């Protein structure tokens, strides 16, 4: 993780709007080929952070390097692609005209506009006005423009909002191909279960602070949330199990038990010693939502 090889490096970034801190002391880096998810509540500072990376707004303090240049400089802009949240276009233009404009602004050959629209599944609608498009189709136009050229860094704000599950899968496949090509990807999302399998690293922003950073297993370990176990007893053996496992409590027809990550195996061993009396066992690890709320609540939210 050196300054030279990272596509995006941010160190000790701070931004306040009218005395209210939108970002405080945020540091992060994204390497070429890495897919990083930025998580946080509404107002956590995700969009502000992205706009600073893009050079749309200036930070109060801190250093940023985007593809080896200051954000917003021509060198940075020529290598950074952006997909805004709720992307909008002029409704009088057709998808093809809009993409042609963007390609020419990026110095790309507009002859490839049709192929690009085909790639995001808009080939058939390319010559219709964007005003007639559905939200999902507009999102695909936004995605198409982010694929123009070979961007070194993609900044995607809620990229899959408005996409159906099949389109989402296609979208992540496109991202995988870009990352394999060496592009660094920073995307924000509310859909935690979705980014879990599709990104290399998670960043959690809360109240303008970076409260957690790492892969999902790392965050799981750091959060050290208890594991829940749900047991169903064979008829009549419930008192025996409760006697053997004094921590268990009865909820409806099942027995609930929690333990720390370290005690998980020994607890399982105690349960398997009762195997004649236990009809069924569910082991429920802390969900991504639990881990997420753990971190985003921790910092005074």
């Amino acid at each position, binding site marked *: 993780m050196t300054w030279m090889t990272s596509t995006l490096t941010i160190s000790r970034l701070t931004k306040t709007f009218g005395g209210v801190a939108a970002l405080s002391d945020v540091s992060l880096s994204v390497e070429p080929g890495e897919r990083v998810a930025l998580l946080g509540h509404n107002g956590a500072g995700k969009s502000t952070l992205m*706009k600073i990376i*893009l*050079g*749309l*707004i200036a930070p109060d303090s801190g250093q940023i390097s985007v593809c080896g240049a200051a954000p917003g400089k*021509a060198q940075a*802009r*020529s290598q*950074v692609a*952006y997909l*805004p949240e*709720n*992307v*909008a*276009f*002029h409704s*009088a*233009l057709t998808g093809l*005209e*809009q993409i*042609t*404009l*963007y390609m*020419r*602004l*990026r*110095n790309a050959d507009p002859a490839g506009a049709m192929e690009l629209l085909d790639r995001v599944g808009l080939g058939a609608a390319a010559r219709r*006005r964007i005003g007639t498009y559905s939200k999902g189709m507009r999102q695909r136009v*936004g995605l198409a*423009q982010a694929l123009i050229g070979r961007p070194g860094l993609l900044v995607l704000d809620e990229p899959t909002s408005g996409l159906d599950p099949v389109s989402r899968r296609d979208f992540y496949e496109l991202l995988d191909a870009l990352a394999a090509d060496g592009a660094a990807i920073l995307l924000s999302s509310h859909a935690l279960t979705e980014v879990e399998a599709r990104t290399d690293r998670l960043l959690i922003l809360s109240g303008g602070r970076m409260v957690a950073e790492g892969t999902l297993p790392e965050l799981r370990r750091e959060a050290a949330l208890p594991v829940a176990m749900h047991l169903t007893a064979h008829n009549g053996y419930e008192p025996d199990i409760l006697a053997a496992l004094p921590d268990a409590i009865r909820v409806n027809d099942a027995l609930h038990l929690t333990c720390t990550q370290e005690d998980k195996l020994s607890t399982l061993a105690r349960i398997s010693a009762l195997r004649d009396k236990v009809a069924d066992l569910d082991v429920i690890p802390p969900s991504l939502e639990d881990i997420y709320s753990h971190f985003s609540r921790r910092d005074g939210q």
Partner: protein
Amino acid sequence: MITRILATATTEIHIARRNLWVLIAVLLMVVFSLVLSAAGSAPTGALGADRLSVVVASLTSLSVYLVPLVALLMSFDAVAGEVERGTLPLLLTYPVARWEVLAGKLLAHTAILIVAIGAGYGAAAAVTIAADPAAVSGLGALWRLTWTSVLLGATFLGIGYALSSLARRVSGAAGLAIGLWLGLVVLYDLGLLAAVVADNGGTFTTRVFPVALLANPADAFRLFNLTAAHATAVASGVGGAANAIPLWQSLTSVVIWPLLALVLAALAFRKVEP
């Protein structure tokens, strides 16, 4: 740079065509020009000018109102519309400079103005010359009116972009544009005339009044065309009151204003934070 400006201009022309702005601008200019040329074909012998020159004098008075209006109508949405639609942040992350965006819009809107002005004046000239072939001697005056109208239009396009950047909301920009149009082309002259009358030949009339006329792009435009055609005699009001201003001064104002307006627009646009 040229590619990016041309790409922006092409897009703006697509938008203006679909929004019917091209059609509206052309129709407005043609209809009003034809009405005026019909009215101007009345007997003109007493003035000793050819018919087309008289029509040009009428067209000058028309254009001073209509060209700024059409230009402002096309430009008030330019920046505020992008802000309100939410298309501006994405555009500004592209490797395109803000002045290039404005230049592209200006190029497209000026091209539309040229088409509208050409169609309007061309129709007026065709009708007049068809009625009186001797009127071709007025073509020089018509050509002068044409290019100064384009410069006047460009000035108000630039002012419109500046207002659009300052307002940041389409409704606010529209209000500012109409207010500015009323102020510069209607109230300004009324105010000056009232001041001249009250002053009764004092220092205001001799010192301030000529400068005030040159400072207003619409007045400078009218002044230049009427002075150049030696037609101040047929002009009424402000045009007639200022025949003492040399031609080069009004020409300078007509030429400098578009550049000044574009600089104002670029400065205002630079301050817009998406």
